[in-house]
């Protein structure tokens, strides 16, 4: 009666017809986490998901089937059925030369629960100490994906991606003033250092204890990594395969030409140990590597999955990833990194007699990614004079064009990048340093 269970079957037994290409993959995603939030019951979670996927290509069409439970024969039949009305593609399958095969054993150790517990509790108590009214929220999560893949070219491999994530923050509400701080750290080898994140959050909370009033105008602004990533999103959009195939990207004919400041280099890097997407293959089984997308401002490579690569006459570079476990593969970088610049935090703050620091940008995403205009309410904005933080600025809207900001207005790039997890509005995780942008429009409601 209650009979839905995964059909047994070995991926290695998938067989292909001579006139078709295809690949099959089996993914197992697990997460363990503990969340403590002021006023609510703590929650300890474990999730486990399986996904099988088959893609069949024949006569320039793609048939695809995914399922959490179906056996390989059923999936392959469904994918072949889907060929009848399948989308037109130019893709082929990866020529996997070798690698590990299953079983890859999960790294999860049940004893880690007590370590997670200790870290969450320590950071939570540290944040609670900021103020009697401070409402903290702290989560530690361990994410782990194992994937096994075969192709119609007799390729077969398997890989694992696993990383830790610590997120922490909270707020104090005083009247109608919400004074919030938040931050995150990722790690490939164990729980990130909670004390370091706590120190940073405590410092930022103290910066914001006093208010500072500025006038509307144009200011130099240090965009801290979470909002610097927001500036990068329109850049990634212009580089991405779907925009190029659709003819929407103004950069479609700019390869080899300068598009951003010479201080900006953007890389898709699948080799970073702590990177959520680090691994030997992307989700299409294409071998990954480090690919420079923009080198000192010059456009070098686009972000292409196998289909977009073939359509546009490029070699696949291993930039096809699923946004969700059961989602379709789309063109996306592995881990996005912006090469750090030369300047320390202190030097960034002293480049101008007065400078703003922006760390929270409500709605800070473009109305039109191809155009790059971004305007949002500054929820975490500080005024700095001669390197000293003077206080928190309220009721300000920060407006930029991301391309102008990273081309003409960029002054400096910091030397201390920080990981930003993939989010609801962000196609890839990133490791991004702070950037100093001059002449940023700031409208203030007095």
């Amino acid at each position, binding site marked *: 009666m*209650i*009979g839905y269970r995964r059909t047994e079957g070995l991926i290695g037994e998938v067989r292909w017809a001579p006139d078709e290409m295809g690949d099959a993959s089996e993914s197992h995603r697990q997460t363990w986490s503990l969340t403590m939030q002021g006023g609510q019951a703590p929650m*300890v979670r474990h*999730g486990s998901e399986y996904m099988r996927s088959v893609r069949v290509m024949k006569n320039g069409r793609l048939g695809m089937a995914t399922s959490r439970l179906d056996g390989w024969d059923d999936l392959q039949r469904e994918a072949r059925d889907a060929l009848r009305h399948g989308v037109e593609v130019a893709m082929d399958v990866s020529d996997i030369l070798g690698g590990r095969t299953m079983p890859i054993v999960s790294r999860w150790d049940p004893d880690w629960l007590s370590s997670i517990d200790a870290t969450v509790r320590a950071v939570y108590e540290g944040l609670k100490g900021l103020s009697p009214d401070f409402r903290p929220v702290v989560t530690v999560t361990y994410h782990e994906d194992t994937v096994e893949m075969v192709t119609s070219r007799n390729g077969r491999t398997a890989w694992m991606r696993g990383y830790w994530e610590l997120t922490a923050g909270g707020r104090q509400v005083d009247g109608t003033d919400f004074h919030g701080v938040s931050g995150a750290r990722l790690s490939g080898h164990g729980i990130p250092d909670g004390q370091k994140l706590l120190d940073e959050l405590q410092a930022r909370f103290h910066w914001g204890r006093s208010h500072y009033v500025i006038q509307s105008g144009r200011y130099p602004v240090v965009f801290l990594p979470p909002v610097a990533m927001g500036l990068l999103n329109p850049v990634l959009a212009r580089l991405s395969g779907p925009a190029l195939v659709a003819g929407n990207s103004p950069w479609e004919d700019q390869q080899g030409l300068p598009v951003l400041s010479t201080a900006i280099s953007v890389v898709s890097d699948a080799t970073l140990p702590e990177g959520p997407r680090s691994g030997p293959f992307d989700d299409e089984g294409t071998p990954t590597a480090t690919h420079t997308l923009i080198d000192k401002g010059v456009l070098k490579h686009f972000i292409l999955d196998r289909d977009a690569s073939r359509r546009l006459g490029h070699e696949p570079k291993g930039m096809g990833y699923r946004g969700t476990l059961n989602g379709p593969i789309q063109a996306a970088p592995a881990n996005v990194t912006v090469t750090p610049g030369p300047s320390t935090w202190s030097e960034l703050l002293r480049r101008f007699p007065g400078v703003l620091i922006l760390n929270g940008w409500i709605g*800070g995403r473009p*109305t*039109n990614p191809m155009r790059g205009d971004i*305007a949002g309410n500054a929820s975490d904005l500080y005024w700095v004079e001669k390197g000293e933080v003077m206080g928190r600025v309220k009721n300000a809207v920060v407006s930029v064009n991301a391309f102008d900001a990273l081309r003409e207005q960029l002054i400096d790039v910091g030397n201390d990048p920080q990981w930003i997890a993939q989010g609801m509005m962000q196609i890839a995780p990133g490791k991004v340093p702070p950037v100093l942008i001059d002449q940023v429009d700031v409208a203030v*409601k007095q």
Partner: protein
Amino acid sequence: MPQDHAADDGVLATLQTLAMRDDVDELEIRLEINETTQIDTLNDRITRQIHTVDVGGNVRVLLHGVYGFVHFDGWDNLGDHVNEAIMLATSGYGVHSTGRTNKEVSGIRLIQRLALKENPLAISLDTKGAVLLHYADVARTAHPTIKSVTTRYFDRYRHLWFVNNRGSAIEQEKLDLGGNIVVVARDRQGVAQRGVSFGSSNDFGVVRGLEDEVHEAAMTAASLLDAPEIAGGEYTVVVDPHLAGVFAHEAFGHLSEADGQVGDPGLLAQMHLGRNFGPANLHIYDTGRDAGSRGYLPVDDEGVSAEDVDLIKDGVLVGRLHSRETASRFGETPTGNARALHYRFPPIVRMRNTVIAPGDTTFEDLFQGIAKGIYAKGSLGGQTNGELFTFLAAEAYLIEDGQVTRPLRNAVLTGNVFSTLANISAVGNDFTRYESGGGCGKAGQMPLPVSHHAPSLRIERCLVGGRGR
């Protein structure tokens, strides 16, 4: 639509047996079958056509004030999953143990079937794709600057079985469908886009007959190409019903979610019931009982029946949105707002259909006396942190001496929630039931189907971002 379990109350009976544990304070088991279809097109071709079926469930246990939550694919080994959830809750014991339990609600025994107008699951993939490609053709031939048209359609059928150890046993069917047609115009001046969106919980018919809207979207995108950027500053703003609905959702609805208030004495000092929050004719409420809207939710994901919740009535704060846990902590009544996007997530407090009731000002009178202002239409989304909100208008026009004069681009409306509500100076009588194909995001659960129905609003001293001069 899977039919083999549609009338199988043996599922509920089995789950009830598993839920009858006396070694926990609370225990819920949820099983689901989700069947999803998605079609994407670009110009004259289908780029993606996906049909997936997810089968799985979750177990949530509350023990000594700590939740253990397990989600899984498939329906086997349910007893093991129950034991694991208890183990996880036990592992957290001592972290923050309060012994607190959630608000008691009467057990519900319910079988809820779909009541459809036009069933999307009976429409072939070919027909759905053809409808989208037809709209793409309408847009592409509307103006020479139209360079691309992308469309997206999805429908999602959910069949859920829910039991808890308080006697509830619920079998529910749900449907959600939506999508959009996005038109991109491009010339040497730059790029501009405009879209048409649709959504429903019971009728594929909303996908039909959109030709005029699509054509208008294409013409609007073309007209926005050479529009100057808005100059940032304070303006009197008139927002259309779509954007007003997003405002109600982003600016006030999220603030009314009790899981954002609990444990926050500073916020509770502001959100005390009885506080004056807006003009005397401002009435905002949240309902799960509006059949056909994407926010329709007769029973929530904790087995609580939907209540209409007045949030602001006659300009006064009168209510908030609850799960069983938050209701318990406030000593109030659960409102049926605990929702989970998928069996991979626990239920949290979410909106359903958030509504601003109509006022008595005509559309024309909303513009009276505005020397220089902004008329903002449609929405490309919004965001809030409780105190501050930002929403991106799809279109904006300059108002000069009470007249709409010319288009502007990059209209981003922002503000402080509390002061902006107080600055609503007129509520229109043009109430509109707008349903979009987007969704709400919170705590990683996105896109959750929600609706917002509203009239136009006039807001004084609204802060608008922009780099124009």
